[in-house]
């Protein structure tokens, strides 16, 4: 069992690294695309809407292969790890943009009127009034997206990144102990999912501090 665990744990480290990097990027993308999608200016809302529909409407694996195989034709050479991180972030960001939009739209209209009455600028309104109220509503769906992202990270094994799933494939080819290897891998992924769920719950508690959530 020990000789199986060392390579698998090394793979797990890469999976975690990929998930964290892609999640950080996805948060930025989701906020930017979600807010741009709601903008009154067409130059902002149209590209954002197109991005969201394209990445939500196609398969994550197709996106991954497209980035990995097609971009080099345009003279853009990206490493497998960069392509993997980028696609995972863009895919999750598209779903996240809809989460951002939903949460921002749920902020009561009176809050915006009050900000206008207080003569706050648009940026101030967004930063001090809208986002602090919208973020607690974003967290539960964002936690689900984080788990989806972690699960999707297994796809990058198909473009030869040695994360957990690819490490398992290599190990299987060597030892043929399929049931043990993939059983352990499933449990490891499940453990990461539990950690994410727990972490998001902590964040939820922190973010809603000081906010009265009425019935």
């Amino acid at each position, binding site marked *: 069992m020990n000789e199986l665990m060392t390579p698998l744990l090394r793979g797990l480290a890469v999976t975690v690294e990929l998930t964290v990097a892609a999640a950080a990027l996805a948060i930025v993308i989701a906020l930017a695309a979600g807010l741009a999608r709601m903008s009154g200016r067409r130059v902002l809302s149209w590209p954002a809407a197109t991005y969201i529909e394209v990445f939500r409407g196609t398969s994550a*694996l197709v*996106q991954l292969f497209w980035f990995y195989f*097609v971009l080099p034709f345009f003279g853009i050479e990206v490493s497998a790890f960069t392509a993997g991180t980028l696609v995972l972030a863009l895919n999750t960001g598209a779903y996240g943009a809809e989460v951002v939009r939903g949460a921002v739209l749920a902020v009561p209209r009176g809050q915006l009127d009050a900000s206008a009455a207080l003569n706050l600028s648009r940026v101030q309104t967004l930063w001090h009034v809208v986002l602090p109220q919208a973020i607690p509503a974003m967290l539960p769906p964002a936690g689900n997206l984080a788990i989806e992202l972690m699960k999707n990270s297994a796809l990058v094994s198909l473009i030869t990144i040695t994360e957990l*799933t690819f490490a398992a*494939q290599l190990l299987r080819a060597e030892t043929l102990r*399929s049931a043990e290897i*993939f059983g352990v891998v*499933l449990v490891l992924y499940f453990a990461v*999912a539990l950690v994410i769920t727990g972490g998001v719950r902590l964040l939820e508690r922190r973010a809603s501090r000081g906010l009265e959530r009425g019935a």
Partner: protein
Amino acid sequence: MIFDWRYAWEIMPRLAEGLVVTLQATVLGMADALTLGLALALARRSRHRLLAWPTGVLVEFVRSTPLLVQIYFLFYVLPEVGLRLSPLATGVLALGVHYAAYCSEVYRAGLESVPKGQWDAAVALNLGRWRMMKDIIVPQAIPPIVPALGNYLIAMFKDTPLLSAITVLEVLQAAKLVGAESFRYIEPLTLVGAAFLLLSLLSAAAVRRVEARLRLEV
């Protein structure tokens, strides 16, 4: 290097063949998921803790682990225990089990939305548990959840390319083979992406129509 339309046109029939396999896998996988999902939802609500609790753990486990690894698990482990399935059948089974876990949560919401009075009335009429579920509860629990199930159908459709990892010749695998022969990936992969986009936008619109109609009926 630009998009070569003539080449794209030439490879279309081979991609279409792959798309047929993709659609087959989606339909069969969803049939699996709908049946197994209902069974899981009912088992999770069971009064017998020995049935309800393990079902809950199983559903959470399947939902929190990658479909690709589940596919590999079935693909490599089933033959070891003497069950030889074709790659397509293995893939359909994996899709079915994975999405059954998601669908069971949807069913659960549907079952919980049936008013308590309906349960009480069924008990008052002295219907057996089986008849109560079959004739009273389930028929009322299903219509409101059709849109949610539809969304999972679309999600499953977008997950079928994962079957290429176990050599199923679905649309992505077809595109990769075409690309490997000619060293031109841009046309096949872009066409596959466009096909997915078109089909999922159309089905999402269909789901929205069903949703709107359901809202009118309520």
